[in-house]
């Protein structure tokens, strides 16, 4: 399926430009296939050993093998009907080697012994062919083998085991609520992921992992028939590293936001649809924003994406070094800034942490895709740049004797490389609620939900929009605004950070579709934050006439 067609078929709209390779090549299957135990660990170990031995015999000095089974389920609906139920499975093997100091990789979906050995030999021949174009041999940070180990997302209810009727009934009730609330159109989607990943390497690791993710979302559309104008309001859910329990919000998962209910850890899709239908009515008649400087109070449902683009990407070491120069770009956070130990990234309230361990997060796994145990580390401390994101072949460049465990491939068919772990803004250290923050704002805008986003290739200049905007006047939330986008420069923006709510407001946002690399790969990543204030940020008006 082409991305373009997928987007059209699922009515996902413009935002979702990246799809997992495992889906593009995936096979449609009977959902009952998902519950089959496709292949046992002993069999995977035998296959992996075939690849390890074949590569070694052809001259590889290091080999790792990833045998992956990637399952996706999409339930796509609009108004009163199911548009599409898509079940896909992708299964295959990717073999990465070092030979003559150079990386080589090959992958196949044919897992018989001869094919695996042939694929391993192809990986070695590619490495040898490329060795003549090297300037220096690959240098891997040491990594001890873990032996035979396993890890599983701590889900309470496997979403693939939930009967399809239950999923369809839920989406139908959500759509019905929006339509009864005055929507003209309602599209809703349930997106489930299960990655069954087996990793083996010549370091002596045999790692079996079972990773689950879920994303319920919708778009409500309202049209003014007289003028032909329309507005949309997207769900305030977040994709999560959870099972179907995410769909069952408990009282403690509801946060009384400054303008409506928000969700922590778990989500009430039906309630959000009801709320959304009311809000979209207000959005139609909202005041068009007066451009100028405002103090922004940004909810985590919006701020997660700003953190992703302006903090997550520029601290990826491969970008800093130039490995992404031809596609995703480089970074303004050059090595000299890090080495100085004094680079002022943001105000001293700003503490950014990287991790692949946070419960319920999209990035959480036990081991990364080159067999390194996952960790947590500081990236920005009290406003100063202190670290990057590095994998085994980069660790030595920043003086580390170990990888930080953030290597990932979106499919067995693609080469693993450095990908963003969860990157989060630590909550404020002093007790503070979003209401406490707003009461000191004279002229501001409160922003909820993510929408349009764009940033330059070195991560200086960005522009973000949102789902809902409310005027703040003299410490009080006022009327709804529309046509709002904020534009800033990363360093100026984070230095304008003047208040962060405490941990009681901390929530995870995230994306299933972080795109990087050539061929393009996507990755799922979470970003935690509490409601945060930024002073004097430039806001533009995006209304136009055609």
């Amino acid at each position, binding site marked *: 399926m082409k991305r373009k067609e997928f987007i059209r078929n699922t009515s996902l709209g413009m935002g979702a430009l990246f799809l997992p390779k495992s889906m593009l090549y995936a096979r*449609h299957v009977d959902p009952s296939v998902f519950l089959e135990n496709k292949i046992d660990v002993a069999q995977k170990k035998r296959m992996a050993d075939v690849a390890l031995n074949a590569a070694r015999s052809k001259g590889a000095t290091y080999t790792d093998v990833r045998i992956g089974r990637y399952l996706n389920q999409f339930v796509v609906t609009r108004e009163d009907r199911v548009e599409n139920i898509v079940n896909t499975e992708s299964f295959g093997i990717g073999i990465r080697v070092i030979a003559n100091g150079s990386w080589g990789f090959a992958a196949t979906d044919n897992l018989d012994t001869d094919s695996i050995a042939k694929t391993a030999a192809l990986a070695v021949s590619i490495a040898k062919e*490329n060795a003549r*174009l090297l300037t220096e041999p690959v240098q891997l940070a040491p990594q001890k083998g873990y032996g035979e180990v396993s890890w599983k997302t701590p889900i309470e209810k496997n979403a693939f085991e939930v009967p399809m009727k239950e999923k369809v009934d839920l989406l139908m009730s959500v759509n019905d609520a929006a339509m009864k609330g005055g929507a003209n159109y309602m599209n809703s989607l349930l997106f489930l992921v299960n990655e069954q990943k087996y990793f083996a390497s010549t370091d002596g690791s045999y790692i079996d992992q079972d990773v689950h993710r879920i994303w319920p979302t919708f778009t409500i*559309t309202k*049209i003014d028939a007289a003028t032909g104008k329309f507005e949309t309001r997207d769900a305030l859910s977040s994709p999560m590293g959870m099972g179907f329990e995410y769909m069952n919000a408990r009282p403690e998962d509801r946060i009384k936001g400054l303008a409506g209910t928000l969700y922590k850890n778990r989500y009430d899709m039906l309630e959000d649809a009801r709320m959304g239908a009311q809000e979209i009515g207000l959005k139609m008649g909202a005041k068009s924003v007066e451009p100028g400087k405002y103090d922004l109070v940004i909810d985590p449902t919006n701020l997660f994406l700003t953190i992703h683009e302006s903090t997550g990407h520029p601290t990826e070491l491969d970008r800093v070094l130039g490995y992404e*120069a031809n596609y995703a770009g480089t970074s303004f956070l050059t090595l000299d800034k890090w080495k100085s130990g004094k680079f002022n990234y943001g105000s001293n309230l700003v503490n950014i942490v990287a991790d692949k361990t946070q419960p319920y997060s999209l990035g959480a796994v036990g081991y990364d895709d080159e067999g390194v145990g996952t960790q947590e580390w500081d990236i920005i401390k009290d406003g100063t740049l202190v670290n990057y994101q590095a994998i085994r072949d980069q660790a030595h460049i920043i003086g580390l004797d170990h990888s930080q465990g953030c290597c990932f491939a979106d499919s067995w068919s*693609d080469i693993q490389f450095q990908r963003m772990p969860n990157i989060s803004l630590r909550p404020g250290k002093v007790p503070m609620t979003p209401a406490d923050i707003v009461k000191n704002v004279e002229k501001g805008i409160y922003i909820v939900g993510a929408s349009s986003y*764009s940033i330059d290739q070195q991560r200086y200049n960005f522009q973000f929009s949102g789902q809902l905007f409310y005027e703040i006047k003299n410490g009080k939330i006022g009327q709804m605004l529309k046509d709002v986008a904020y534009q800033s420069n990363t360093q100026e923006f984070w230095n304008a950070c003047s208040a962060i709510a405490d941990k009681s407001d901390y929530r995870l946002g995230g994306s299933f579709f972080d795109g990087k690399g050539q061929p393009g790969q996507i990755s799922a990543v979470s970003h935690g934050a509490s409601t945060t204030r930024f002073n004097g940020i430039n806001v533009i008006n995006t209304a136009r006439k*055609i």
Partner: protein
Amino acid sequence: MAILNKEQAQQLLKKVLSYSKADECEINISGSEGGNIRYARNAVSTSGGVSQNSLVVSSAFGKKLGVATINEFDDASLEKVVRRSEELAQLAPENPEYVSFLGPQVYKESATYVPATGAIDPKFRADAVATSLKIAKDNKLVAAGFMQNSSGYSAMMNSHGLFAYNKSSNVDFNVTLRTEDGKGSGYASKGFNDVNKLDVASATKFAAGKATGSATAKALEPGKYTVILEPAASIVLLENMFFAMDARQADEGRSFLSKGDGKTKLGEKLVDDKVTIYSDPQHPEIPTSTWNGDGRPQEKINWINKGVIENLYYSRYWAEKKKVKAVPSPDGIIMEGTNASLEDLIKGTEKGILVTRLWYIRSVDPQTLLLTGLTRDGTFYIENGQIKFPVKNFRFNESPIIMLNNLDALGKPERCVSGESGISALIPPMRIRDFTFSSLSDAV
């Protein structure tokens, strides 16, 4: 399994179809082989090869559809996948928008496969990278680039007698060269069905010129400027207009083509009359498959003719409901131009900005198609018909509709690849008045 020729594919599909007991059955098969190589910091970084095959069976009972897929091709597996699709169809809810599979169609031969491209091997790719790296090093520049090739086939057959087959090949090459001090950057991107048309050295030299030339950029105030967009810059704006030309979205009132009360702008003049955009699967510069994924023939279609919206694309369901021809969305965009070169456009510009590439394009408002993004890899100030100096990159907020109303001049179309979606198009360089740059970026 190797790449099947037309007869082999037909034979296999007939066998699969013979297992069907459903009211209707349709089978799609595809397979590909290919490889890629990536380089950065003037050395190769990663490289790989991948091959895969897939067979999809769609079975329908009434308006209930079941789909199952397999990548094993022995008789037992093939029968099993047909049975599985039938079981799924029996369990599926009725789809009120289900449309029966198409009957036999007549397709023109496509020109999408070139044997030389199919013959590319790891050595060929490594040699190409070596050529590109030498140019970078000779010019004291730092290169990062990517080359990938694939060849494959797709075929389909159904119980109403439809059979379609296509074989295709393609190769993409793109490269970014940066000055050693990181102050200049240049980019080139090429994509072809025929590898013989790919000149890696020439593309790398083009990027090198942009990199060296952009190294001493000055800051200009943001605002409205006359711009010359090279094809790699304009494609990423035009494709957003193209992706939004779905008839149903327009009819439902949620598109830039909607007018309210269920009316659309189909048939209306929306942009400058110099704008003619069409698709043609037989075009020698940008051949595409002569059928789409559900078996509809791809024909030459005018989308915008002299500024008038002439066609929208339809799903088969929506076309049936609206009682119109079900025109499928095309695979290649072609915009008419003139014989003027890029240099001619520059010569005719009193004051303006030359844009090599636009990047990170996102929709800001779907009802006006307002897009935002940034210039990248070579932005230059033009005065009195000459490039005067490089300028710092800008963020823009602009709609392709407004932009095509402010169209001043067109040059000669050339094949380009979108840096955003990866689609190929044949687009002329264009000069636009009053293009809106809203802020400056420090990025190089």
